[in-house]
């Protein structure tokens, strides 16, 4: 790795970190590509799993999916380390930094002091890159931020050893060996078909069906005596989409960008184009859906569960169509 590290901002932390990490180790790969070849687009609505009393809703695959799958699909050997002892974890990290080796970390947002106060929730699967150390301060390239940030050793250690759901346990990773002559065309085709199939799963709480299940749940929401819950529920959906997710239908746009990039690899370009456009439409519908959710929870007179529900179903229609096209690739 060269001494000069160029920080860039990304739409999503995990794909951003992997993209920078692999690029700096010699394999140039964009963020949409990293997101796409790991088949990371998803939708999950699990009412039994509660986070702060709210159901689990996710717009992409589980955290760590990208790190786990990127080595599998590209044949990269990744060093993945968990630690029990924070002191040892910290000593190791300092060693990597001194040797000028770029490493990725999994952290909890709540303990990172450079995050704005109101963004600090117990979300344990935030990824970042450590690029340097001065005194007891680490220099960090956090893909969510515009510039490099710094974080004290003590606080970073705390963030690395946060507990709870998706606990990082000091997780540290970097690529050790990257094979030459990777046949990206083959990898992309396989990944797209796999992703299309997972989105079309018959399981009612995931993929296209999951979106419809959530839509049904929203349509049944009633305001009477339940205002606080309704408000929290609707904004929770938006938060999972915007803050934890990325800008409206951000993941949909990210995937559309991937399909666009996939065109240069000898696949059926008209199918990719059509599907890409459908995902943009779905992303736009999801943004409108988020706006409707916010409107409904701001003013009770404007509460219209039917309209919100229909918007989500509209988005699911676009995705179903896109996946059916991609399956035949």
């Amino acid at each position: 790795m060269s001494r000069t590290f160029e920080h860039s901002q990304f739409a999503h932390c995990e794909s951003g970190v992997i993209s920078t990490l692999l690029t700096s180790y010699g394999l140039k790969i964009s963020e949409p590509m990293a997101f796409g070849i790991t088949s990371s687009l998803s939708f999950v609505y699990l009412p039994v799993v509660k986070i702060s009393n709210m159901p689990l809703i996710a717009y992409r695959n589980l955290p760590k999916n990208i790190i786990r799958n990127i080595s599998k699909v590209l044949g990269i050997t990744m060093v993945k380390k968990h630690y029990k002892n924070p002191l040892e974890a910290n000593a190791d990290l300092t060693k990597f930094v001194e040797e000028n080796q770029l490493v990725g970390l999994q952290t909890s947002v709540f303990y990172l002091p450079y995050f704005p106060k109101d963004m600090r929730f117990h979300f344990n699967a935030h990824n970042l890159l450590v690029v340097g150390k001065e005194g007891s301060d680490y220099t960090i390239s956090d893909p969510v931020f515009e510039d490099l940030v710094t974080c004290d050793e003590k606080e970073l250690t705390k963030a690395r050893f946060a507990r709870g759901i998706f606990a990082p346990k000091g997780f540290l990773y970097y690529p050790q060996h990257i094979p030459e002559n990777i046949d990206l065309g083959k990898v992309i085709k396989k990944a797209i078909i796999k992703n299309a199939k997972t989105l079309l799963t018959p399981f009612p709480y995931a993929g296209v069906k999951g979106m419809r299940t959530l839509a049904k749940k929203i349509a049944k929401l009633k305001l009477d005596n339940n205002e606080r819950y309704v408000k929290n529920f609707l904004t929770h959906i938006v938060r999972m989409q915007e803050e934890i997710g990325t800008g409206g239908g951000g993941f949909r746009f990210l995937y559309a960008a991937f399909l666009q990039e996939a065109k240069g690899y000898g696949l059926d370009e008209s199918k990719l184009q059509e599907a890409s456009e459908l995902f943009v439409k779905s992303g736009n519908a999801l943004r409108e859906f988020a706006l409707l959710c916010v409107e409904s929870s701001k003013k009770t007179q404007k509460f219209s569960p039917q309209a919100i529900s229909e918007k989500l179903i509209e988005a699911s229609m676009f995705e179903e169509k896109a996946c059916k096209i991609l399956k035949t690739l």
Partner: protein
Amino acid sequence: MEKIEIPQEENKILEGQRKVMYVTDESGHFERQKYGSSAEEFATQVAVEEFEQLCKESLERIKNNESSPIEFFMYKNRMDLPTLCSVVGMFAFRVKRHLKMKHFKKLNDKILQRYCEAFDIRLQELKEFKA
């Protein structure tokens, strides 16, 4: 190619930062662009306010000798019960008991210390907490 609308609204939560998302330019190519979303701002605010509300309600219950200060600090640190259980390493039924004043009063310092570490406060602060 369908156009992507990028919101350029103010989002105070981010304290001057702006996040990026992928959008298409005129020729249909994707690029990253900065955006600001007031919908996102509102949603985050509601979540923050919900915890503030829970803190307030908890203070009321502490005054009535129903809830223990642990409950207040749990909400103050934006935790829910499963998160707190995992941080202190105890089963939920045990932590639930500790959230009640009558059980809290009987707790020894060793147990209380575990909660103090979770909330990053001194033992005194937890023991002498006044609502």
